[in-house]
């Protein structure tokens, strides 16, 4: 009768596994049980799939005049047609693809700049930190969108990559700040001191000692930058500074407004692109909350 619950389990205990592996499986355990993470990533992956596969099924030119004009959604044209007879579903799948592209590229550039500055400022400290901090604050205060409007307006030919580059160059500051404060708290730990004593180079210490210990944080930073790059790009496209001759969800909104879809009550023209952006970015954010709960034991709902 003195049988303790834990004692019976003791002889069936699994062989000790390496710490890293155990942590991984623990993370997976919580990841599989987190509805926010599952729903969010499910939607994002579905949209990604549509964006990747869809264009192969809808023909080469999404801006071609293929159908009857101003047709509401029906069996043949799933999302209807524009007032010029363009297939909105075709534009949507191509637009989704370029939306992912701009998110990865714009978010990627911002991520690289932001983390690089954050790491160096947080790890080096002193005068370097002061200078980098000053730069970060200046860029942070500048309204990114308005800078982008002025800069992009002077470009005659615009592509997705140029747009992404400009977006990346203006939207990194908060990431730099966040990474810097995380690095600050890690830089004074014993294992970093040991690494420093062993005489390794700064960037080696940052990449092998500091960065891996905040990897989950970095992933979440990238997801947020990805989402905000998409929103900024949509705004730029909407005022007519999108990629020339391209297709994107923002450009669809722009042409819908330019050709007064609103007054003509052609709701099928302006609802899908906006809904696409909102669903994608919204699921990214919710996915991010899910990730946060998985990685951060304090937030786990047990």
């Amino acid at each position, binding site marked *: 009768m003195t049988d303790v619950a834990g004692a019976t389990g003791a002889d069936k205990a699994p062989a000790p596994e390496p710490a890293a592996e155990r942590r991984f499986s623990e993370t997976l355990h919580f990841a599989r049980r987190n509805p926010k993470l599952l729903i969010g990533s499910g939607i994002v992956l579905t949209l990604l799939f549509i964006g990747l596969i869809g264009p192969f099924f809808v023909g080469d030119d999404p801006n071609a005049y293929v159908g009857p004009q101003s047709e509401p959604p029906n069996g043949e044209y799933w999302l209807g047609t524009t007032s010029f007879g363009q297939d909105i579903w075709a534009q949507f799948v191509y637009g989704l693809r370029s939306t992912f592209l701009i998110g990865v590229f714009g978010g990627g550039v911002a991520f690289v700049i932001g983390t690089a500055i954050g790491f160096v400022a947080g790890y080096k400290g002193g005068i370097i930190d002061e200078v980098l901090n000053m730069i970060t604050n200046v860029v942070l205060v500048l309204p990114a969108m*308005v800078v982008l409007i002025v800069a992009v307006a002077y470009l005659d030919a615009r592509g997705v990559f140029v747009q992404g580059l400009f977006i990346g160059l203006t939207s990194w500051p908060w990431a730099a700040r966040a990474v810097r404060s995380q690095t600050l708290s890690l830089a004074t730990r014993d294992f970093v001191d040991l690494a420093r004593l062993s005489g390794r180079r700064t960037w080696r210490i940052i990449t092998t000692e500091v960065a891996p210990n905040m990897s989950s944080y970095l992933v979440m930073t990238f997801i947020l930058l990805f989402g905000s790059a998409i929103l900024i790009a949509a705004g730029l496209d909407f005022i007519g500074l999108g990629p020339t001759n391209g297709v994107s969800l923002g450009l669809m909104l722009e042409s819908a407004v330019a050709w007064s879809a*609103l007054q003509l009550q052609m709701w099928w023209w302006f609802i899908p692109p906006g809904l696409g952006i909102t669903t994608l970015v919204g699921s990214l954010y919710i996915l991010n909350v899910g990730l946060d709960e998985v990685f951060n034991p304090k937030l786990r709902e047990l």
Partner: protein
Amino acid sequence: MWRYIGRKLAVYLLTFVVAVTINWMIPRFMPGDPVRSMLSRASISDPEALERMNSYYNEVFGLDTPLWQQYLSFWAGLFRGDLGISIMLYPEPVIDIILRSVPYTLAVLLPAIILSWIVGNRFGAFAARSKILDNTILPVGYVLTATPYMWLALLFAWAMGVVLGWFPVSGGYSYSLRPAFSGEFVWDLVMHWFLPFLSMFVVALGGWAIGMRNMIIYELEADYSNYLQALGAPRKLIRRYAFRNAMLPQITGLAVQLGTIIAGALLTEIVFNYPGLGSLILDSLTNRDFFLLQGIFLFVVVGVLIANFIIDIVYVLVDPRTRVQMTGGAA
């Protein structure tokens, strides 16, 4: 305290210099010859006017003087309040055109920012740590922050303007009316103002609610909350303390978010064809009026800097710690 404000001022001054420098650099270092292409694309039929403008811009840009001299004269012009002359509405000075649009933008922007901040914070504080509310407000908040400003504006314009016909969807006031201080005109202004305001307000709401909810949860886990709870303090009291502490990051957040919200206001105005700075940007882009565009850019930057400074002062007033630290403990 003065140290703190002085530091902030230094950053803002530097930002202003950077903004002006960007403004000066872009037309000069972008590929191609912007002045030439701007003039050739501007739709001006009168050859004499074109000739006059050509010599005017050559003089303004001072293209035959060395770069540093161009830069200094650019600053000199700025201090005289001279932002150049518009192409779109030649020969009206850029500054006059901008000043005419600013009241409309501010009328939409200020109430939307302040009200969404207050209401969003209330909602967020409410939602934190109450299961049902949290599970509804959190997803709704995230979806709202993910909504492009112009899309929600379009939805509202379509639903409440076109389908239901409650509100006008275009312009700042009816064209049949002359601007006057009559009841009819003011009512007309309000009706035109409402939808742009509402869509801005709703999009901005989500972010504040989420931020507040996260901060409250964080504060409720702090030692002082646990201590109060152990002492048997009522739940409401603990929450009030938590709320006051959670406010501080939200004030900082307001400063950080300002750029995004202003961008949202510009996009919203374009949807409603509201005669503020947003529509002006669109007009200047379609007419390739870069002087006007750059004037608006400087104007918005200055506005953001002033707003940031006001927020800093509010922060000092609200948080006694900044006052103490900055006067006493600063090394």
